[in-house]
């Protein structure tokens, strides 16, 4: 039986998992900090434009005179919010659909998996762009679109697992004793598949961070929120920035943060995968 404690311990035992967890903790810390304290409101003009880092602006200011550090902190909050909601949403939906399809492989399963196939075959980024153009640019809509496009992959993996799980003696016993699908789902499937679900969540989170940053970079994100992607877009759009040295404090911080966030979640995902594999080989 898998538990939180067990998973955390086996994750902590490998360097990939340890680094990933540390990264996520740091990011969470920064995001929580931004909730209660930020040097300046991120959208306020708080100093001269393109001021290099100094005592009042630890990371300098951007082309409008907004404080970079405040924007990096608020961007952290947005990215983590997107990561957590998208991974929760897509993994729970993928889990539900995948287990339903694996548990009833005949009719329901065929229909569900056919729709999964179709959704997975449509090229992702063009579809995200198409949907983002026609929906209002609100963070909620972006999260919804990312969930809508991320669950099919999870569902496919879960289905193949459930297909073999349902033939295990313990679950067959429950089924023949009259335990229905909701009961098996709650009591058995979720516990058996818990580590896999965690690994999938980490992967979905890192994908969500990249996708949200990319959308903001294209100008299709929420224009009212100072996310990392929007900062990168603003820096690259600023005339002549590449030839001045301002890119080091305007472009670099959000770039490093996006990469760090993706790196942490990816490493955690690999760590969880590895822990899973070790457990299976034991």
């Amino acid at each position, binding site marked *: 039986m898998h538990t939180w404690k067990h998973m955390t311990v086996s994750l902590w035992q490998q360097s990939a998992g340890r680094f990933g967890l540390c990264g996520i903790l740091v990011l969470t810390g920064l995001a929580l900090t931004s909730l209660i304290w930020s040097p300046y409101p991120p959208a306020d003009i708080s100093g001269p434009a393109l001021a290099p880092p100094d005592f009042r602006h630890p990371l300098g200011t951007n082309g409008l005179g907004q404080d970079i550090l405040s924007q990096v902190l608020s961007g952290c909050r947005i990215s983590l919010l997107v990561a957590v909601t998208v991974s929760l949403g897509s993994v729970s939906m993928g889990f539900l659909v995948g287990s339903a399809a694996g548990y009833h492989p005949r009719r329901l399963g065929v229909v569900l998996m056919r729709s999964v196939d179709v959704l997975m*075959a449509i090229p992702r980024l063009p579809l995200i762009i*198409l949907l983002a153009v026609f929906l209002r640019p609100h963070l909620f809509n972006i999260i919804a679109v990312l969930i809508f496009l991320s669950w099919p992959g999870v569902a496919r993996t879960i289905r193949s697992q459930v297909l073999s799980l349902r033939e295990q003696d313990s679950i067959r016993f429950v089924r023949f004793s009259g335990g229905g699908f909701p009961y098996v789902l709650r009591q058995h499937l979720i516990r058996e598949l818990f580590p896999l679900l965690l690994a999938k969540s980490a992967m979905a989170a890192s994908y969500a961070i990249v996708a949200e940053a990319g959308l903001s970079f294209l100008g299709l994100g929420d224009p009212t929120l100072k996310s990392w992607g929007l900062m990168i877009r603003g820096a690259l759009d600023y005339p002549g920035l590449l030839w001045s040295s301002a890119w080091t404090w305007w472009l670099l911080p959000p770039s490093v943060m996006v990469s760090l966030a993706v790196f942490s979640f990816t490493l955690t995902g690999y760590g969880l995968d590895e822990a899973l594999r070790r457990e299976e080989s034991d």
Partner: protein
Amino acid sequence: MSSYLHRRAATYLLVLAVALSLNFLLPRAIPGNPLEDLSSGLGNLPIQLDCETLEALQSYYGLDRPLLEQFRSYLRGVAIGDLGYSISYRAPVSHLLMDRFPWTLLLTLGSLFLSFSVAVLLGSRSARKPKGEWKVLLPAVLFESVPPFVLGSLLLILLGVKFPLFPLSGAYSGFSESTGLGTVLDVAHHAALPMLVLSTSSFFPAYLVVKSSVLMVKDEPYVLMAEIKGLPEKTIRYRYVLRTALLPVVTFLGLRLAYSAGGAILVEVLFAYPGVGRLIYEAVLSHDYALLQGAFLAFTLWVVLINFVTDCLYASLDPRVKEV
């Protein structure tokens, strides 16, 4: 054709149907209509339309007909290659797509060639000597974590501005008088950075596929037999192991070929590379919905086509698939 291929073909037809319906329904599901947009004016001078003109325009563009009939005429247009007219370029959408597609193909093929050849080299080596694997794994995961458009913007500054080795944007130099080899070199010079950036994102998954595939083949009895016979190590490594191990790699290459065209959008935008991805971005900026939908359809068509070809190839190479 086997039942496996029949099923795949049915799925792809469904994919096309979904893409077409999305294209048709999305603009009609949102509030407002093209004529309202005309009279409110997006960046243009607004035109005040009276009711009669509005009705005349509506019937001219067929917007007053029932939805199903509109859908039918849309499908009829798509079937003969008429994807509408781009309002920002003042040209048929299909011509624009044809013009831009080769550039996207060039970037995609180049980056896949780069990443897969390095992946085959390093992946088969890691399968043989698992000891120093972290030397490949660490940079690979690091590079995979940097989103391509972020990596691209940093490389652009480093290799385009600080040490101006590569051009900043575009696919060829304007007003250049070079011909023949000079043109080829010029195009390669412009494509180098975007290709490099794109290849970092497909290297790591390719590397994993190569490694696991080689690991599976490496201990097969026929390889052992070749070793006992005393064949030279190079012959075993390339002719016996790698050749067999490449089958799943080729399938994976097909998959990447299908999807990385769409994934190149951000990189094309960053390097102002004139591919379909850049076109889709320009369409977004100028509210050119016909162009946007045409580009989306083109990406979907490309995915479906490549996927189906890969399925056919796979089924003919590995007869076991047909029975699934």
